């Protein structure tokens, strides 16, 4: 049986999942990108990885429509007028979401939904009903955990109602980020933390930091990717630092031969993907999102991803004992920073004419389900985590290099629910140390954060027993639980 027939006959997949898988199979029969031999070699070795983007890019990987504009103007193509009531507002948004593609075909960004809905609240009770229905609709139809909503930094009634509804629904979709600034009302953040300890969201984004790099008009999409509203990212390709270190064997070869060569290949590979998308696929020429000004090519960038820094450093230092390894030794941290600085310089030096300011943005990729023993981005490996304070201090210095996303997930003991201010203090401290993004969940909740996205433990169980599940990301979650050991994260109590 070939893959196509296998897909057709796979009873674990829902009908929708089959259609998407078949589309991918069709796309992958094409060979339309010009990729040189050296790059192909690195791709085959798993050093450069295009994260299942497919062989013929025909839509950007991430799209962040300007929903504010859509709320003000409606849409000619979708024949929608500016909403007048909360019901029309949620209905309009739900309609548009189904026309915002991404690499998974589901929208990865659904807007700063508190700001979008707040003007339509007349009656709190009615608004709560509408918001709950809205969120439930998203969870059951946009069945992909990379679908991401933003709330904050302002404390609005809509934001409060969204949090309340999430505590009640405990669904895995959408993922939510709360933008937290120095001025954000503390009680609102505490409300967010309480929600997070029940249902693993929202995560907390360092608003000042994102604004200083991307300006006020930024959104958090997919896992934790900071991108411009009205723009997005054409592509995300990642580089496997752990594998480069294995190949290089020593620091000299790593810095002087392999790293420059791989970065060069990967930049050219990204250029080629972008070229095809823009010059040949016709996406930007034909999409109503462009025509109606909801996205603008000038606000686009592309994401240069990396992962496996910890293993890379440990290999280059030949660090076996805990005290010498990444997460514990000063020398390992310094080498890690040197690698990322070096990477940053090389990537910044590359120019792509279709990207904003000609630049790719660095992204600490969270890993995929099939990664075996290689850690996401610049994280300390699961199972080796130091005490929380040291853990944050080791990872925070890396965050400034990754405007398009970096973060980590901390599992707290459920007793933290008695003292949410405890978590707030830690988040504030982490932000003060330069941390960009902070995710948490409680060790006893059903919804858990895998690497960036959310999955229900109970659904992973179902899948393990061969039952169908509605949400595609459960498959990834299951792989990650098995290969990345994400449920073995150190539980934080007092340390």
């Amino acid at each position, binding site marked *: 049986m070939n893959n196509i027939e296998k897909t057709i006959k796979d009873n674990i997949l829902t009908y929708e999942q089959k259609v998407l898988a078949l589309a991918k199979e069709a796309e992958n029969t094409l060979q339309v990108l010009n990729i040189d031999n050296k790059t192909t070699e690195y791709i085959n070795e798993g050093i450069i990885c295009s994260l299942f983007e497919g062989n013929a890019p025909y839509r950007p990987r991430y799209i962040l429509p300007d929903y504010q504009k859509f709320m003000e103007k409606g849409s000619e193509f979708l024949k929608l007028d500016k909403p007048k009531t909360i019901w029309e507002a949620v209905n309009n948004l739900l309609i548009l979401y189904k026309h915002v593609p991404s690499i998974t075909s589901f929208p990865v960004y659904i807007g700063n939904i508190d700001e979008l809905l707040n003007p339509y609240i007349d009656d709190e009770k009615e608004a709560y009903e509408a918001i709950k229905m809205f969120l439930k609709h998203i969870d059951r139809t946009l069945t992909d955990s990379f679908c991401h909503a933003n709330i904050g930094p302002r404390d609005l009634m809509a934001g409060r109602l969204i949090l309340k509804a999430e505590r009640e629904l405990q669904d895995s979709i959408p993922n939510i980020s709360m933008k937290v600034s120095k001025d954000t009302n503390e009680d609102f953040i505490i409300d967010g933390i309480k929600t997070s300890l029940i249902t693993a969201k929202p995560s907390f984004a360092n608003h000042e930091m994102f604004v200083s790099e991307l300006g006020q008009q930024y959104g958090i999409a997919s896992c934790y990717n900071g991108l411009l509203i009205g723009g997005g990212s054409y592509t995300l390709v990642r580089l496997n630092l752990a594998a480069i270190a294995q190949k290089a064997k020593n620091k000299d070869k790593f810095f002087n031969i392999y790293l420059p060569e791989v970065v060069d290949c990967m930049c050219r590979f990204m250029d080629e993907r972008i070229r095809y998308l823009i010059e040949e696929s016709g996406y930007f020429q034909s999409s109503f999102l462009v025509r109606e000004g909801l996205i603008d090519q000038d606000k686009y960038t592309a994401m240069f991803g990396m992962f496996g820094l910890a293993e890379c450093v440990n290999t280059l230092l030949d660090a076996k004992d805990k005290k010498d390894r990444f997460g514990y030794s000063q020398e390992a941290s310094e080498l890690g920073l040197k690698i990322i600085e070096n990477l940053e310089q090389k990537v910044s030096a590359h120019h792509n004419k279709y990207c904003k300011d000609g630049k790719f943005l660095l992204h600490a990729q969270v890993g995929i389900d099939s990664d075996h023993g290689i850690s996401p981005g610049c994280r300390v490996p699961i199972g080796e985590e130091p005490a929380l304070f040291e853990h944050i201090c080791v990872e925070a210095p890396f965050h400034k290099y990754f405007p398009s996303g970096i973060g980590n997930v901390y599992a707290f003991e459920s007793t933290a629910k*008695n003292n949410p201010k405890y978590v707030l203090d830690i988040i504030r*401290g982490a932000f003060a140390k330069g941390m960009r993004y902070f995710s948490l969940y409680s060790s006893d909740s059903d919804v858990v954060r895998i690497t960036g996205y959310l999955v229900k433990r109970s659904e992973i169980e179902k899948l393990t027993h061969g039952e169908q599940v509605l949400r595609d990301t459960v498959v990834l979650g299951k792989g990650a639980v098995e290969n990345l050991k994400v449920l073995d994260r150190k539980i934080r109590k007092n340390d």
Partner: protein
Amino acid sequence: MIKAPVNKIIPFSSVDGPGNRLALFLQGCSFDCLYCHNPETINKCINCGCCVNVCKNNALSIENYKIKFYEVNCIQCGECIRACQNNSDPRVRYLSVDDILKEIKKVQAFISGVTVSGGECTLYIDFLMELGKKIRDLGLTFFIDTNGSVPLWNKKDLIGVIDSAMLDVKAYDRDEHIMLTGTDNDNVLKNLDFLIKSNKLYEVRTVIVPNVLGNRHTVDEVSKIIGKYDGSKYKLIKFRQMGVREDKLNSYTPSMKIMNELRKLAENNGCKDVIIT
């Protein structure tokens, strides 16, 4: 500069007062509770040397009849405290207020304040006063966690530097308290009254020990006192065998049913914030 024996510093604690707190544990206690979870904090080391040889990591030695602890070699295995017959700990260090401030400054961005616990921290009043002043100068809050054995009503200066206190009321009945801790509870109850009236009582704690203590009586009486005033929490803690010295107690972890009944009782007596852990 005054020093105090420090058993342990926990940089992040979620259970020692509001927000995230650095918790400092001082060595030495005025009670000897049957259910003590950290019996190694009760006594000061008598330098008998019995623990030295059980350490497989060269972290302990005895020099000039005194125990020496080499922290870098210690892997926190706990073998030494299991070997100690004296309820002590060879890892205790005498630290000055400045030594401790150094540790606090490292985590300052992450904490609401510092809580000093024990053992029994009020055995070191002068140290607490100096430390408390400096902690408050940093803009942090200063809490103490006490068993109430030392009279606080005549320590106005100390009360001036603490933001609030956590107080254990282990048993309301005097004889029961003697049975459990070896000491009567006269000072404890006077301190309870005093701290409430000075508006410095953050939380009262009672460990619920089935079979052994008159839990209901204690919770009933204590909650009546707390209930009369506004603001203090009442934390009811389930007895757990872990860490407790064997053969001291014949009890078990109470069910949530028992705990919820006690919570109800306390709430009916006017306690607004009852926590079960």
